Structure formats: structure tokens, C-alpha cells
């Protein structure tokens, strides 16, 4: 099921499918946010923003707005 990254719930995993390049900083790509890589939503901050992710082994936080430009394929529950 494809959805956007900001709609994941805590603990859910997904595979990155694509993103709007102009709305995603290069730094994020360099930290591993690339199509085909796995992403896990580790934690959401109070007030629902930002989101704490584990992308391909890199732990980082981005804002919900940026996450909404990233399309992912949800992995079924493990």
C-alpha cells in the first residue's frame, strides 16, 4: 500500500518509493533517504511533530511537512 511518510504510525516500517526532489533537502538524501531504502518511524514528538526516523540505519528527525513529500510503500506488520 503506498502512502506518504507523514501518515505512518509509531513503529511502522516502509520502503521509500519516491519523493519530490525540490521539497526534500539534499542532506536528507545523503543521510540515506533514497528510493528502495527501508524507513521506520521510531517516535513522534509531542504535538505530533517532528518525526524521528530510522532510515537505512541512520537515526534522524525531520518535520512532518518534509515527510509529506516522501512516498512510501508500507510493509505489512511484523
Amino acid at each position, binding site marked *: 500500500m503506498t502512502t506518504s511518510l507523514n501518515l505512518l504510525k509509531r513503529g511502522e516500517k516502509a520502503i521509500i518509493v519516491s519523493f519530490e*526532489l525540490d*521539497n526534500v533537502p*539534499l*542532506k536528507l538524501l545523503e543521510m540515506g533517504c533514497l528510493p528502495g531504502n527501508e524507513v521506520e518511524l521510531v517516535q513522534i514528538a509531542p504535538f505530533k*511533530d*517532528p518525526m524521528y526516523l530510522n532510515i537505512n*540505519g*541512520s537515526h*534522524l528527525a525531520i518535520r512532518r511537512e*518534509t515527510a509529506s513529500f516522501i512516498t512510501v510503500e508500507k510493509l505489512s506488520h511484523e
Partner: protein
Amino acid sequence: MSKQLNVALIGNPNTGKTSVFNQLTGLKQQVGNYPGITVEKKEGVCKLPRGVKAHILDLPGTYSLNASSLDENVVIELLLNKNDKDYPDVAVVVADVENLKRNLLLFTQIKDLNIPTILAINMADRMDRKAISLDIEKLEERLNTKIALVSSRKNTGFDKLKELIANYKNITTEPCVNASVIAPEYFERLRNAFPKQDLYKLWLVITQDVNFGKLDRNEMQSISTFKTESKSNLKRLQQKETIVRYQFINGVLKETLSIDHLAAKDLRSRLDRILTHKVWGYVIFFAILLLIFQAIYDWSSYPMDLIDESFAAMGEWVRNTMPPGAFTNLIAEGIIPGLGGIVIFIPQIAFLFLFISLLEESGYMSRVVFLMDRIMRRFGLSGKSVVPLVSGTACAIPAIMATRNIENWKERLITILVTPFTTCSARLPVYLIIISLVIPDERVLYIFNLQSLVLMLLYLIGFGTAVLSAWILDRILKIKSRSFFVIEMPNYKLPLFKNVAYNVIEKTKSFVVGAGKIILAISIVLWVLASNGPGDQFDNAEENSIARMEAGEFPESELDKHIASQKLEYSYIGYMGKAIEPVVQPLGYDWKIGIAIVSSFAAREVFVGTLATIYSVGSEEEETIKNRMAGEVNPILGGPLFNLASGISLLLFYAFAMQCMSTLAIVKRETNTWKWPILQLVVMSGFAYVVALVAYQLII
């Protein structure tokens, strides 16, 4: 003597690069600035096998060679400029064994620059616990490099690393990824246009907005024709490049690295659950802040009293031992009390830097950024503004430089503008001495010291004003900018004693030396101004006082005091103080405080030293600074000069006024215009005056 070997340490943030640097150089290191910019430059010397000496440069942490901040620019500007005197003979890329994949991205980029590159894999001590195994030999072969597994915590592997550095000539400069595959045609055109230049370097020159010294004007012009590719097209190519590099890295790591993921789930998730919890997260953060203030106020008072008394004793010793005369007076009345006014604050400043570096080193600071981002954004700030605001409690200058990693310009500008409201360590001297004079030393609820509560309140006022003015600025400033926000959440680490200790020593030293120079100069000027006067009244102070004593105005025992205060009143500084007295009188200050405030516009911490120097000239007995201030009498109303009303008024004035020339200079440099620092100076100081005025008039 043979030429020194130039070594550059390069690596992602949070890989322990600085601890590797500390291990290699020990205390033989110095911290300065890159010329013209305020990026910190750390360098040191390391002894290698066979008597070779290496000059080690610790470059700012960066995730890649695509620079997005001033600090990162420093890295590529150096690596692209062969004529730079620091251009490395060999680069050491420091990687964290748990984040090898991401760290290798930077490694492959450096390798493509044809610089001999050694890979130092740090935190090797964690491998067992995390069930990580590495095939080093194979990894060396695939990456065309030599690898040293090091642990700065256990101090292992450094002999090997030094050996590798000494033998850097054995390392091939062959790249491991060919970047030109991302757009063969484009790169072919580049190659034809610049047959002599290295392709990857050209590519970096095209995509980065930095200064490159070595390209001459002709080349620069033809290079600009390659920039005609649209920005988003270039970014697309950069994305492709990143993908190509990761493909290579994934392939290499598949053959050489194995991680047992089950063993890797651990402390991090458990700690994160508590530290970023929607209730406990904030409770813990505020508890830590409270602890810091308690330490600064309560715990450091013992060493401070000791220092205060020692300086008083030293002044007396100088006066009694050295031959009497102007020079002795200058030392005993000008320099020693002035310096005492700064040395006394070393304990607090050290405590402050100790806590800040513990928070940074442990990885906790990123969690605070994560927790606070949503809240801060409501005020036009970013979660990353927390770091400048918290480190602003040490000093606004590094704090303003720390705003560089805020991606959004508007959020960054607002952070720069409001950071000087946070209570910096230079305000502490003023707060501490005034609080101890006007606030009773009592316990509230048996635990909290009333004085440290007032101090905490002042810190809160600072933060509160910063946040509130951010909110106002957010509404006023019309700047459109995109809000990119990416922050790494590093592993939790037990801070290394060595790193923390070096940091505390280094920061405290530069604070004391920096402030000490200003204070020494001002003390001397003040002493000269206070010990000389322009007219007969000054020259005849002694005879006039004797005449008044003989007329029965005061007993003989007070003669010395009268002469001294007469002299001070008719000295140059006395006249200057009288001139500004009408301005400061409504706030409850006398002319001496007025002088201290004026001289604090150079730097706030001068306040105490100035008063110490003025009072010292005005009295003959040796006394501690605090006792002298307590003994001052309000010339108009009688009673102690430092009472609740004037004390609160002074505290508030110092809380808000912009009294730091260095901060203004940094703001000018970081915003590239005088508009913002002038705005800060006028608005903050005007506001301070009004608040102090209202407070005094209400309390009195």
C-alpha cells in the same frame, strides 16, 4: 628539519572525530579561527614513528562535500585548494562503526579528490556489544585504502593509525567511485573543456557556492557556462551521484560487514522512550536546567569566596611590600581589583561549560531539539534554536555561530536577534554580586535557596524575553524561506572525561583571557582617570578636608576617608560620572554605578571590576569587593546604595541591555549588514532603561 606532514581529520558529526583528535594531539593543540570567518579552527601536533611530526587539522564535521553551511564550506575550500598551506598530504576520514554506511559516503567523495585517504573506524569497543563483525582486509581492498580500527574510549588502535599516517605514501590515490557515470555526456563536455583539471573537482566547483582560490579568471568564466544547467537539474544529478555512491557502498558492506540487528536494539530505544516522552521529556529537561543553576549558584560559592579573599590579601601584600608610589598604587588599586573581578567568576563559568559540554557529548541535546521543535516553531524559531539559546547561557558569541545549522533563514535570523537576551556568563558576575547584596540568604520550603531561585528567575526572564521577542519578530519580518529541517539523533554515549575536560579548560581559558585583556585595559584607564583631576579642587582636596575637619565638620578619624572621596569626586572620572548622573539617577544609581554601566558597554563583566577599581581608589583599607559595595551609601536618600529597589533595577537593566561589542560584531558578520546589530543595540538597551526605571519607581 624535514617538512611537517599535513594531516586533515574529516568526518561526519557524532563520529567521535574530536576525541580522535584529542588522542592524537593530547594537550598540544590550539583553537583559533579561520581567517575572515568565525569558524573554529582546531589544530595540533602529533609525534609519529621514526621521529616524523604531523600537523593535524580537525576540520568541521560534515555529512558530505555538498556544503550547506559556512562550517562545511571550510572543508571543501581547503580540499580543493592545493596551494593552501594546510592542504593535506593525507586525509584521515573518521567513521563510526555503527554508522559505517553513511560515513562511507563522505569517504568515497574524499577519495575521488585524489588525496591519499586513510579510514579510521572509531568506537571499535562497541563492536562486541553490538555483534558487529568486519572483514578489514577485504574492506581495505575494496575501498583502495588502509584502515585503522580505533577506540578513543579505550585508547586502542592509535599506534596503528600513526603508523599508517607515517606511511601514507603507500596508499593509492585511485578513486573508488566514478562520479561521471551519472551524466556521461555532461562530464565528457567538461573533460574536453578542462583537459588539465580533475573531473570530480570541477563538478564540485560547479555545484557549490564557495570561493576557490586556485582557478584563474578565464577558467572561472568558462566554468560558469556549465552552471547554466538549472538548479533542479543539478540537484537531480547530485541525487544520482548519491545513489551511485550508496550502491557502491552497499555492495562493499554486503561482503564485509555483518550486524546482528537483534543485539543492536537496546539502550537507545529505552532511553528515547523516557527522554522524548511527552511529559517526562519536559520534566527531565527542566530538572536538568534547575540542576545547572543550583550548581552555578550554590556549589561554586565556596571557591569564589576563596578567590575574592585571596585577591584582597594580594592587594594588601603589594601595598605593604612594594615601595610606595604611583606604580604600586596602579597595581594595588587598579590592576589587582580589576583582575579579581574576573578571576572570581572562573568557578561558575567552568560549571556552565561543563554542563553544556556534557549535554552535547552525551547525545541528549538532539533529543531536546526534537522535543522543542514544534513549540519553538510557534514563536518563529526552530528546535535547533534551543542549542543557541542554551549555549547562550555561556556566551552569545559561540551561540550565534551555532545558529549556522538552522536551515531556514528566517528562523535563523530571529534566533540570532533574540539570543543576546539569554543570560550569558558575563551577566553572572553582575547578578551574583547584586543578588548577594540585596536578596536575603534564606531557604524556601527548606530546600531551595532564595538567592538561587532569584537567579533562576533571571534566567527564565532572559529566555522568556527571547521567546516573546521572537514571536513579535516572526509577525513583523516578512521573509519567505523554505523550512528544511534535518537533525541526526546520535547514539547515547557516556561523555569522555578527556573531551569534556579539554572543552571546559579551553572555553574557560578563552573567556578569561578575552575578558581579562579588556578588563586590564579598562582598569588601567579608570585608575588613571580616578587618580588624576583637572582642577584646584582635586589638587587641594587634602588641605580642604583638613580645614573642614578643623572647623569641626567631622572627627579626625574620618579624615583619610574624606580626602579620598573628595579626590575621587573631583577626578576626571568624577566629572564624567556627574555628567551622566542625571540619566541614571531615576533608576536609583549613583554616578559610580553610572560609570560602571558605561564601561560595561565594552563587555558586561567589566561592571564588577570597574566598581572594584573605583571603590578601591576611594578607600584606603583593603576589603573584598562585596563588602565595599555593601558599605556604599546613597548620596541623596541615605541608607545603603545597593538596596532592593536599586538592586532589582540594576538586575533588570543588565537582563535586557545589549552591552557587548563582540556580540554586535558577530551579528554583523553573520547577517552581513549593520542593520541588525544596530537594531539590537537600540531596541534592547532602550527597553532595558524603561524597565529598570519602572521597576525602581515602583519598589522605592
